[in-house]
């Protein structure tokens, strides 16, 4: 896979799409093979170049929306290798962009599922990292936020970022490669 492209992983339930993403994120150790990132910052591991946007939102209900986001911004270090040119967005701007700016001071417990999802998405914007691993990114989102998400994903690609996403809904990403997983004996090996 090269920079600036998206890989869309499709396939039936339980075929290993999520496992593939978790492996790429370094959360599941490799049985065999290696994972290499070319042109990254040398003192960071591939996983530190990566945002994992999974099924769980990592949102703490007891903290306010802004506190949730500010924590992830301060906690995760940005990774900006030369080939990747995205700028940093401040937390409040990111929330406005995703249409939940008015909830910034509310405890996250009051958010709906879709709003929590968007808050979790804002995490990807406040810390620039070139690789986005997105597991079912459109789940719980309405059509308008889905369009916003597509715009964000495309602009991420335009900046030289890389996206690997597992999805059931067709996503209009350009440029895009497809990987269809089926109940085959072995999974194809990924080198990103």
């Amino acid at each position, binding site marked *: 896979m090269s920079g600036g492209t998206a890989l869309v992983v499709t396939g039936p339930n339980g075929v290993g799409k999520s496992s593939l993403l978790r492996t790429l994120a370094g959360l599941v150790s490799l049985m065999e093979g290696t994972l290499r990132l070319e042109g990254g910052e040398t003192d960071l591991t591939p996983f530190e170049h990566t945002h994992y946007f999974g099924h*769980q939102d*990592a949102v703490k209900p007891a903290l306010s929306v802004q506190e949730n986001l500010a*924590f992830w911004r*301060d906690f995760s270090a940005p990774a900006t290798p030369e080939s990747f040119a995205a700028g940093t967005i401040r937390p409040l701007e990111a929330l406005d962009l995703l249409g939940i700016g008015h909830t910034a001071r509310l405890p996250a417990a009051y958010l709906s599922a879709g709003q929590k999802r968007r808050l979790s998405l804002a995490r990807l914007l406040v810390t620039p990292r070139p690789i986005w691993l997105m597991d079912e990114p459109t789940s719980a989102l309405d059509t308008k936020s889905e369009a916003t998400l597509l715009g964000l994903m495309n602009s991420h690609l335009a900046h030289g970022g890389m996206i690997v996403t597992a999805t059931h809904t067709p996503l209009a990403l350009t440029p895009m490669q497809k990987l269809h997983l089926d109940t085959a004996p072995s999974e194809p090996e990924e080198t990103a």
Partner: protein
Amino acid sequence: MNGWVSALFLRELRLAVRVGGSGVVGVLFFLAVVTVIPFGVGPDLNLLARIGPAILWIGALLATLLGLDRLFQADRDDGALDLILMSGRSMELVVLVKCLAHWMATGLPLVLAAPVFAIFLNLDPVAIGAVTLTLLVGTPALTLIGAIGASLTVTLRRGGLLMAVLVIPLAIPVLIFGVSSADAAIHDPVPFLTPFLILCALSLIAAVIGPFASATALRFASD
């Protein structure tokens, strides 16, 4: 480097103090344990004064265990643990910071409540001071040892009881030296400093072994 440590510390402290946090509940549980003992052993004031330090220590141990099971499980349930693991931050330091924040929110209130509860048990002022001091030095060790149990049981739904069973044997040395140094302060011939310094050493050892063991366990838990 220091930015993320303070961000994590503040987050943990906020979570522990706000709704669903275990700080106040721990103190109430401590109070419950301390008040129920005199009903069991009878109102003999001399007896209570003699076993008072031990009661306070056992109460503090149980109250510490009460809040520890959520130390990592809350983060695992909402996916935050995955993000913390892949962030590339030193997991040992993450555990240490989380333990420190947890102790500030749950352990320190126990230490502050101990002098008040000690009056219920007819302890004299010297004994109250000694017990409070030993609790101040010893409760961090309980939290750090408990973190090992909490990270080992992080994948289990009802891991709280198993965690207590795992942690209590490991906490026995802390209990022994905590109570013996408090007793040493009351009974003259025994020097106070010897068991107290061993207690300090136990806390320092726990501050090294706890984060390492617990970080290793958490890495395996993500598979």
